[in-house]
C-alpha cells in the first residue's frame, strides 16, 4: 500500500516534471499561468495557530519580542535536520529552474514519506539589489512558486504556508553575485 502510494507519487512527480519542463520554454510568461491557476486555493483559510487577538496593547513588551526572533532561528535550525533543501532563483525571477524542481521533488518526498505530519512555511527571499518594497512581493511570488509545485507533487495544501521577507533576511552578507545567488531563495521551515 505504502509502496503503491510512493510509486503514484513518483509518477505524479514525473508528470509534473514533464509538464514543468514544457512550461520552461516559455518561462518568461509562465509566471502568469502559475499565478492565474492560483485562485483554486481553497485551503489557505486554514489559519495558523491562533495568534493572540490583537488589542491595542502597550508595546513595551521587549521581553516578549526578542524570543520571537530566536524562535525563528530555532525553527530554521530544525530545517536541516529534516533535510529540507533551499531553492534558488534567478534575479528578478520567480519561476522554478530545473535544479529548483529537483530540490522541491526531494522536499516533497521528505514531507510525504518521512514526515507525514510536518507542516512547513515556505519563506521567499530576495537579494539586496531590488527595491525593498517590490522585493516583498517578489519574495512572496517565489514562495508561491514552490508552494504550487509542492502541491502539484501531492503535498496537501494545508501543510504549506508562505511568507515573504523580501530582502530583509539575507542568508549571507556580501555584495557580489555569489552572495546574491545564495540570497534569492525559498527556505523551508517547519512550523508546529
Amino acid at each position: 500500500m505504502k509502496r503503491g502510494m510512493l510509486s503514484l507519487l513518483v509518477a505524479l512527480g514525473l508528470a509534473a516534471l514533464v509538464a514543468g519542463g514544457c512550461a520552461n520554454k516559455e518561462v518568461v510568461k509562465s509566471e502568469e499561468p502559475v499565478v492565474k491557476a492560483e485562485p483554486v486555493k481553497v485551503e489557505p483559510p486554514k489559519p495558523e495557530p491562533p495568534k493572540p487577538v490583537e488589542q491595542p496593547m502597550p508595546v513595551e513588551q521587549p521581553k516578549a519580542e526578542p524570543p520571537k526572533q530566536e524562535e525563528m532561528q530555532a525553527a530554521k535550525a530544525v530545517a536541516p535536520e529534516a533535510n529540507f533543501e533551499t531553492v534558488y532563483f534567478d534575479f528578478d525571477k520567480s519561476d522554478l529552474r530545473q535544479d529548483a524542481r529537483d530540490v522541491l521533488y526531494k522536499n516533497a518526498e521528505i514531507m510525504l514519506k518521512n514526515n507525514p505530519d510536518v507542516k512547513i512555511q515556505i519563506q521567499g527571499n530576495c537579494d539586496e539589489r531590488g527595491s525593498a518594497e517590490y522585493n516583498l512581493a517578489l519574495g512572496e511570488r517565489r514562495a508561491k512558486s514552490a508552494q504550487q509545485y509542492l502541491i502539484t507533487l501531492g503535498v496537501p495544501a494545508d501543510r504549506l504556508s508562505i511568507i515573504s521577507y523580501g530582502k530583509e533576511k539575507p542568508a549571507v552578507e556580501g555584495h557580489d553575485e555569489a552572495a546574491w545567488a545564495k540570497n534569492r531563495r525559498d527556505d523551508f521551515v517547519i512550523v508546529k
Partner: protein
Amino acid sequence: MRIHLIILLILLAFPSALRAQTGYVEVTAPGNRQLKLAIDAPHTLDAKPNVDAAKEMTSVIAFDMNMSGTASADTKDQLPLPGNITLAETDFVPWLTAGYDLLVRSEYSLKGDDLTVEFRLFDVLNRKMMTAKRYLGKARDLRRFAHSFADEILLAVTSEKGCFTTRIAFVTTQTGNKEIAVMDWDGHNFLPLTKNGSINLNPDFSPDGREVIFTTYKHGNPDLYKRALSSTTEIPVSRRKGLNITGAWSPDGSKIALALSKDGNAEIYTISKDGSNPVRLTVSPAIEVSPAWSPDGKQIAFVSDRLGKPQVFVMNTDGGNVRRLTTSGSYNVTPRWSPKGDRIAYARMQSGGFQIYTINIDGSGDTQLTSIGSNENPSWSPDGRFIAFSSKRGGPEEIYVMRSDGSGQTKVSQNKGNNGQPAWSPR
C-alpha cells in the same frame, strides 16, 4: 492709463527692479543671484551669555537657509554689533559694505529651563524690517524656534513658507533590527518609535502628522500597524493573510492605500483608516505595490511588473484609467507624488544601483537628480522644495536631503546603523 503701461513696460524690461523693491524673489526661477544673509550673533538679555545656545540658534537658521538655496547664510560668532535689535538701533553700514542683502538679529533669555527668543529679519539695502517673531518656551524648544523663524524668513523672501519644523520618519538598524524612528528634518532630535525587535518597514505619516503607519513582522506576518507619535501603543490596521505593505495615507486622512496579497498576489487596495472596507483597485496576475496618492486624492501612482519589469503606472482612485508613466529604464520603483502635484519622484535601477528621478505627470521631463553611489526611496518635503532619500554613497545607508532639482545633496541622519526609507512629515 498710459503711465501704468509705461510702468508695466519698465517692470517687464527690468524685472529685477520689482524684486529689489519688494525684496521678494522667485524660488523656482533659476538664475536669480543668490541672496546673501548675515546672521548676527544673538544678544542676551541675561546677565551672562549662553554661548552654546546662541551658536545653536544661528547655526540652525544658517543650515536651513543654505539648504533652501534661497540665500547663502553666514553666522557671526563674535560679539554682536552694539545697539539692541530694533530697526532704529541697527547699523546697516557694515553689513551693506560686506555685501549682505539680508540680516537676522536676535535676542534671547535662557533662565533655568525658560527660554525666550526674538528674531528680526532686516532688508539691509532698504533698511527695513521684513518680519519679526517672539517665542516663549523651554530650553528644548530652542532648535524648533530657530527652524520656525527660518520658515518665516522664507515666507518673507519667497512668499512661500518653509518646512523647517517638520520631521522625517525612517527605518534604522541602530539597535540591530529594523525599527522605525523619527528625527527633525535636519537629523537632530533622534527619537526611536518602535522597539519590537522585529522587522519594521515603510513608515508614512498621517496628514495631520500625529500618527505613523508602518509594516511590521512582530507577529510573524508583514502586517500594517499605526501608532501615534505621542503614544507607545501600536494599533493593528490591516492583518490580512499575506502581505500588508507599502501603506500610504490619503491626503484627506480618511483612507490608506496599500498592497495586499490576500486574494492571491500583491494588488493595490484602499482601506479605511481603521483598516476596514478594503476596495481592490488593480486586477492583474503581476506584482502591484507602492501606491502614492496625488495631492488632490484623485489619482494613485503605483509600481507594477505587468509588462515584465517593474514600472510606474498611474490610475484614478477608482482603479480606472490606468496608464504607464515611466517608459525609460527597465526597473522603476517607489513613486512619490510631489505636494504641488506636478511631478513624481521615483528610483530607477541602473548600472551599479538606484538613482532618483523626477518626471512630469504626463511622462515628459524625465530628469535624473542623483548620480553618486546608490540612491533610492525619495520622499518630498511638504512644501515641495526638498526630496529626502536614502543613499549608500558613503558606505552605510544614510538619509540625505536635496533640493527638488537635485542640488544641495546633504546627509542629515546622524545615528548609528543603516538608515533608510525616509517619509517626510506634513507641516
